[in-house]
């Protein structure tokens, strides 16, 4: 009897592993494919060697992708936008969440629902009024034209995630801090902020994703090549090389590799902060 149980559980475990690994392959495959075809000639991509490693490594594809567009510049712009947006979103949403969930006042529930409206608003719905205003403020064609809207649109998600995590912090803690005479700001900085680290990572990721991918605003609010962000750069490069897959693959790879390297390097840290959050909770 015992034997059978352990057999089925072993079989089940094997089954689980197969699914986990299969999904890993499915998740990785497009990236693998992109990296390989970025180094192939059209003849290899279009028939001889569709999915294998390149037989002849065509680094020239990368040279062409680098020379046609200004990929490093686009990348830097996207990075500046992302970091500024994350900083603004984090600061604003942790503060707002604290006021909404820990301080007592009439209408805080309503304030929360008000912010949650932001979750539901499609970012493109405000493009025309925003454009007019940004133009009046002479902010068009600067990175601010992206940072400000992106921060605003990331706020709702930031507050939502922060609310989830802040709920895990026992009320006793800040009540005790209050009794010790810390005051509202003292409690916020000494008790809440240190315990919000796990949320910081998550909010950071969400915000990063929202602004890293955005195409429409980046297209309309930025005119000059020097302030262009990655999605716009990649899209226009792909438009120029529709029939020449090698350079497209190279451009897509250039846009992707730094993020992936950063992620591989940081994923441990992100997990650590999750665990820290769990211990405190």
């Amino acid at each position, binding site marked *: 009897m015992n034997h059978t149980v352990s057999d089925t559980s072993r079989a089940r475990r094997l089954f689980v592993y197969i699914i986990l690994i299969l999904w890993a392959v499915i998740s990785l495959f*497009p990236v693998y494919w992109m990296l390989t075809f970025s180094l192939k000639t059209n003849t290899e991509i279009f028939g001889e060697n569709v999915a294998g490693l390149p037989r002849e490594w065509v680094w020239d594809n990368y040279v062409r992708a680098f020379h046609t567009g200004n990929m490093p510049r686009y990348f830097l712009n996207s990075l500046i936008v992302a970091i500024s947006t994350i900083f603004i979103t984090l600061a604003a949403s942790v503060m707002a969440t604290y006021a909404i969930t820990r301080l007592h006042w009439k209408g805080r529930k309503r304030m929360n629902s008000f912010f949650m409206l932001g979750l539901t608003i*499609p970012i493109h719905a*405000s493009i025309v009024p925003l454009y007019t205003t940004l133009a009046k403020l002479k902010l068009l064609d600067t990175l601010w034209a992206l940072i400000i809207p992106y921060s605003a649109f990331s706020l709702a998600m930031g507050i939502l995630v922060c609310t989830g995590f802040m709920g895990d912090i026992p009320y006793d803690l800040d009540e005790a801090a209050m009794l010790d005479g810390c005051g509202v700001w003292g409690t916020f900085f000494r008790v809440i902020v240190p315990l919000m680290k796990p949320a910081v990572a998550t909010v950071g990721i969400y915000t990063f994703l929202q602004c890293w991918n955005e195409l429409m605003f980046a297209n309309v609010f930025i005119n000059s090549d020097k302030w262009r962000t990655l*999605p716009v750069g990649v899209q226009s490069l792909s438009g120029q090389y529709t029939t020449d897959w090698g350079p497209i693959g190279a451009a897509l790879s250039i846009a992707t590799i730094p993020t992936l390297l950063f992620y591989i390097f940081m994923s441990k840290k992100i997990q650590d902060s999750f665990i820290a959050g769990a211990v405190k909770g």
Partner: protein
Amino acid sequence: MKKPLQYKFNIFLFLLPALFLFIAVLIAPIIMSFYYSLTEWNGFTTPEFIGVKNYIELFTSRSINIPRALKNAFLLALLSCVIQLPFALWLALRLARPIKGKTALLSIYFMPVLISTVVIGQLWLKIYNPDYGILNVLLRSLGLDKWTQVWLGDKKTALGAAFVPILWQYVGYHMLLMYAGIKGVPVELTEAAMLDGCTPAQANRYIVIPYIRPILRVSVIFAITGSLKSFDLIYVLTNGGPSHVTEVPSTLMISMLFLRNRYGMGSAIAVMLIILCFFFAVLINMLFKEEK
């Protein structure tokens, strides 16, 4: 209890940055969009007030066909909830347990989320390419020539083909969110349950899942509203075509605004979307609260 003025002022200060951004960038433009939705406006001349005519046309016009766009968005939301989220939860639960290669798997699953949507779209365009795409090449090499399709160009397969990358990309997104929640479950709770004779599956069912409700709520809201306003991948992959079968409300809105110069009608779609998303957000919140 009356609060001292200082306290109220502090609350205001805490809210100030968020409120500023929120009102200036979201609320005011939305109110302007609402006003525009009641006008006939080509974007250049003065908007002419026409009442709710845009809304009437929106729901009666055969050529705009908003019901089809809504149906597509709802279908995506449904698929998200019945395929994507349960699978993400399953992955998160598995990875939360001690398991070999967990760090690597977690990183791999999340990876598609980090890649720019434009890159994902371009990659899947290539995967679906009828002549050289890996999908048809694979089918041909397996001798399944009959199954090869013009995936994104055929009215029968385009919608499904466009949904696959969307669902695929965001599995890792929800998984990471849920994983973060599960890691927040106190170990003592699950350990105590196990000592009481619970199987891991039962512990998940009765301890972990109820504990991560707030996160699940976030995931569900996000999956549904995200589906209703989905745009980027559809835009890159099909832009609503062929023959509008993959149209979703956002692509309709963009074509009203920027192809047809119908800012009034585009704004009406925007307002409808906002209301719809808001309605679902409230509904989900209520459902989660009631079950409690």
